[in-house]
């Protein structure tokens, strides 16, 4: 049973990481857009997603959306897709802020050198700017990823059968607290593995 819960927890984690990082990067470019309304909207989005509790957002996306007038009936989602969507949108906002800082850290001279060498904007972004940005943002991204491991436990609040959910029901039905211990060990080892992974990545991006 716990293994099944771990499956949901891992899936939610992987889905969120894989979607929210590119989404956050996209938001970063929108936030830096020269078209002011786009930049404002993006920043407002980030402000709202970071300024309200993730659990509240979960309730909103799962229970709240269907009650919206007119469009509500098209927004009915199963628990798990609702959780995936919420986590992804929420973490994208955090990643957006992290990447925005990283982007600011890339020296103006890098853009100028790329320009006089005749690189296009896209080439400059992917070959010059992003690799340097990655180096700067890696520690913060690692931090977010670790937070996410533990945030996945919030999904049990809308009844998703993740590790936390099974742990609690086992503890209740058997009047035995050892499942808490197993869950703690799992979260801890997962976090440890991530820490290791990111330390290696940081080694790679030392230049």
């Amino acid at each position, binding site marked *: 049973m716990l293994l099944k819960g771990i499956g949901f927890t891992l899936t939610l984690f992987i889905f969120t990481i894989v979607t929210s990082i590119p989404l956050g990067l996209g938001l970063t470019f929108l936030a830096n857009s020269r078209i002011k309304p786009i930049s404002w909207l993006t920043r407002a989005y980030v402000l709202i997603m970071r300024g309200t509790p993730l659990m509240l957002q979960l309730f909103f996306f799962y229970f709240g959306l269907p009650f919206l007038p007119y469009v509500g009936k098209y927004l009915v989602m199963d628990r798990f897709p609702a959780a995936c969507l919420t986590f992804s949108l929420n973490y994208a906002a955090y990643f957006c802020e992290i990447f925005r800082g990283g982007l600011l850290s890339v*020296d103006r*001279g*890098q853009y*100028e*050198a790329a*320009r*006089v*060498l*005749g*690189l*296009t904007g896209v*080439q400059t972004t992917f*070959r*010059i700017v992003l*690799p*340097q940005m990655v*180096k700067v943002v890696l520690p913060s991204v690692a931090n977010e990823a670790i937070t996410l491991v533990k945030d996945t436990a919030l999904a049990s609040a809308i009844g998703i059968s993740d590790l936390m959910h099974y742990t609690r029901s086992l503890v209740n039905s058997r009047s035995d607290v050892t499942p808490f211990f197993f869950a703690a060990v799992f979260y801890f080892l997962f976090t440890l593995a991530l820490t290791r992974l990111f330390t290696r990545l940081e080694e790679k*991006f030392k*230049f």
Partner: protein
Amino acid sequence: MDMLKLTDITKSFGENKVLRGVSLSVRRGEIVAVIGPSGSGKSTMLRTCVGLERVSGGTIELGGRALVRDGVYVRDREAREICSRTGMVFQHFNLFPHMTVLDNLCLAPVLRGILDKKSAAERAAELLEKVGLSDKADAMPSSLSGGQKQRVAIARALMLSPDIMLFDEPTSALDPELTGEVLTVMRGLAADNMTMVIVTHEIAFARDIADRVLFMDNGVIALSGTPDEILVNPPSERLRTFLRTFNHSAQPA
């Protein structure tokens, strides 16, 4: 033919007029040194020639093609193409820190489809030898000294076989004992008849290498002439004052 021709270019940052009508033509093979106090507009003038700063008015032609005519710029794609025949060397080198020296050299010509990987690597090897850094091809920029970085930056600009090289204070960020190696490389370019515009504070070097020296002051070319005319017998009090403060700082008493 003029490799570079500026006609009455002007540039303002808000109220501040940085360039107030600068005209200049540089012939093929000519070496022009630009001196002047900081804030006189010499770097800005150089940067406008490669589109890093936009002028408010005037005409800039590179190799006979207008980048901007009477303050109106050509389209961005065309601008990049016109500027692509011009090499630029920055005060702070601006090497790409996440790439080896070899990749710094090969990136632009390969990405732009000018050279394939193999011929780019061959050309890079030649140029690294020319700047005396054959053994540094696989080094990361962070492991190089300032002088070495600047020599790599020069080699990187040469990879695109530019018609003209612009130097924006190439030795100003270097420790005094490292300027020599960079100036030597530039002398080598001069010997190859490279057309060059050099913004510099190295007065002795300018006297030595330049065909023509410009003294910029307050957004205009105040004086222009041979090194002897400008530097040996300075014709204006303002220039004399500038050169004097210079000698004081350059030569410890």
